């Protein structure tokens, strides 16, 4: 799966979980500071990424990821 496809699907998941508009999401967007994720939503995001990409991620490491671009990089290692 190429990077563009991963990014597109990551943005879709982020918007779905956090309820934000896709046009406000950039690779630099911070889940908390820019997109308003609450602490419980971080866990929801990890679960949603795993479901979207059909992968199983190291949860502790996944929760360290703070930006959309970071999530793309992280998921790319699994797909």
């Amino acid at each position, binding site marked *: 799966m190429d990077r563009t496809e991963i990014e597109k699907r990551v943005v879709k998941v982020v918007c779905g979980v956090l309820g*934000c508009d896709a046009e406000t999401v950039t690779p630099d967007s*911070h889940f*908390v*500071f820019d997109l*308003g*994720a*609450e*602490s419980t939503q971080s866990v929801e995001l990890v679960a949603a990424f795993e479901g979207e990409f059909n992968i199983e991620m190291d949860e502790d490491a996944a929760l360290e990821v*703070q930006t959309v671009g970071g999530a793309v990089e992280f998921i790319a290692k699994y797909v």
Partner: protein
Amino acid sequence: MKNESDMHPAGAGEEPPPPPLDCIFCPQSVAVLGVTPTPNTVPYDIFYNILSSGFRGTVYPVAPGKRSICAVRAYRYVLDIPDPVDQAVIVYPADVVDRALEQCGQKGIRSAIVISAGFREVGPKGVAREERLKEICHKHGIAMIGPNCLGVINTDPAVGLNASFARKMPAVGRIAFLSQSGALCTAVLDYAREKQIGFSKFVSFGNKAGVTEIELFDYLHRDPLTDVILLYLEELRDGRGLIEAARRVTRGENAKPILAIKSGRTPQGADAAASHTGSLAGEDAVCDAVFREAGIIRVGSIEELFNAAILYAYQPMPAGNRLAIVTNAGGPGVMATDAAVRCGLNVPPLAPETKEKMKRALPAAANLKNPVDVIGDARADRYAAALEAVLEDPQIDQTLVILTPQSMTDIEAIARRICQFRQTAKKPLACSFMGAADVGPGIRLLQEAHIPHYILPEWACEAMAVVQKVRQWRDRPTTAVEPLPVDRETARAILTSNGPGYLDEDRALGVLRAYGLPVPEYQLCRSADEATAFADKIGYPVVLRVVSPQIVHKSEVQGIALNLTGAESVREAFGRMQQHLRSAVPEAEIRGMLVRRMVPPGYELILGAKRDPAFGATLMFGLGGIYVELFHDVTFALAPIDRATASRMVRHVTAFQLLRGARGKPPADVGNIEECLVRVGQLVADFDRIVELDVNPLIAGPAAAGNAVADVRIRLTE
């Protein structure tokens, strides 16, 4: 409102304007950064509390991805708010607080309360985060409370700010409460609500990375709505700054008392101190003594803190320590009398006119002496008559009313009658309605009328004793530290020619002599001939003491010979010591033997000094010699000291009873001891390199014989 110049941070190279604490307590607009829409979470509750506490300004939620919070339009970033903002309350997770704070700086916000935890308290990563916040505050001139705190409350109806996650806004009052612990704040607020105690300001300052208790003291000193300041402190960083601020607040014009709980211990330096002062000065006693000298009244519990605070805040300052007790039960009256006397209060006889007035109103069985017993069947009229009489007594400064709930006691009527005195009494009045369930309604009436109430009469006496300390502190004359004439250059020459570590004894004595301490005549002798010649010159008996940079504890290696009465004994001791030391401490460089007159016996005292991590140069005085660690009869003060402080130090220790001449023994030259303390204080204040100094013992002989330094250790740093 802000003008244009206030809205922008100072340009490069300019000093930022002073921290605007007014924006902390009296903002016209507040942005809460990191709000979430989930009730019962800190980010939501903080915003909700500001909204619902009657805040008179404007509040903006900053909540990325949310259109509104509690029906208030939300903003993605603080920079998106179109209007000026005075205060930011930041509730984001720790790892993005710096971004939020930086945007606050760009927005021109001058005050911030960082509620978020995850900073210095969590270790190195948190320390780095906190340093980053400090940098941002410095760059933009932001006054910051926190991080890791409960928040700030200002009950002033003109402001009505509850920027905290406390459950309820406290009542309006004249007590300011500052706390390093956020969790304690919530408990204190709950406690105070139950007792109907109000606050002017309530501040949880957490890690105090920005605004500290020192700036808060100065702000509250100027605050017209605050009469008394309460402090809960866990960690002292700038102890000297705290003390200087406390002295500004607690004395002079507009003086306000500071009552403090200081929990925990002053951290001892990693280098375990070898001297007596080193091991003792790290104790909590330093904090105790230093607070005392700054007018900070240290108490041990929240109960004590508020017991004293309500008496001070609600009642006039008593003119003296004379207490009248009015009771309907003999036993509690006696207990209260015992407690009063134990606390330093006086329970004097009442004036004859007072007794006469009471005689007309009370039954024959009543006890008209102090404590006044109005007898168990007393109702409101009897209490009123007794209270009126004792309050008018010129020999009485304050009154305690005790009530026990007997079957005929009309508790609420008595409480109401006492409350009427609140308007007219010019002397402090406190009550103890003993019990719980039956006396409860009466207690509530007293509390509503701001008559201090204590479940136990002993607590009332303790609170009165605290107020006495406040009065005595204010009455104490202020004196300046006047440097005494000393030979500073000689001391400097000795100190600068020596590296870190302990000074050899001859050099340490040289420093003390230069500063005017009573050092007996001495000489460092390199041969037995030199030693005997010098001993012949100064007269016998003499003492020989080895001088070696490697030998600190001389007696442990037989490096001391005492009471040598003639030339032969000096010669013999010199040779014997030299021989022994060569085999016992072969690595030691023996510079020679110090010869000096044997100091006649007297009281052994210690005069010490140490660089305390929090307070800097700290002086110690007490019983010395072998008694130092045994009795801990010592006291402390910050150096330098004036003569009055020296006098108080000398009188504070139990050993003073010996020095003034106990059991027919002649008194010591106390004046000279005081002067020695002043001189040691001056020495350690003049030379930062002295990290430890121990004159132990200073032998205090009879006044005619004077005092003499018998041993000294001085340790230098780099």
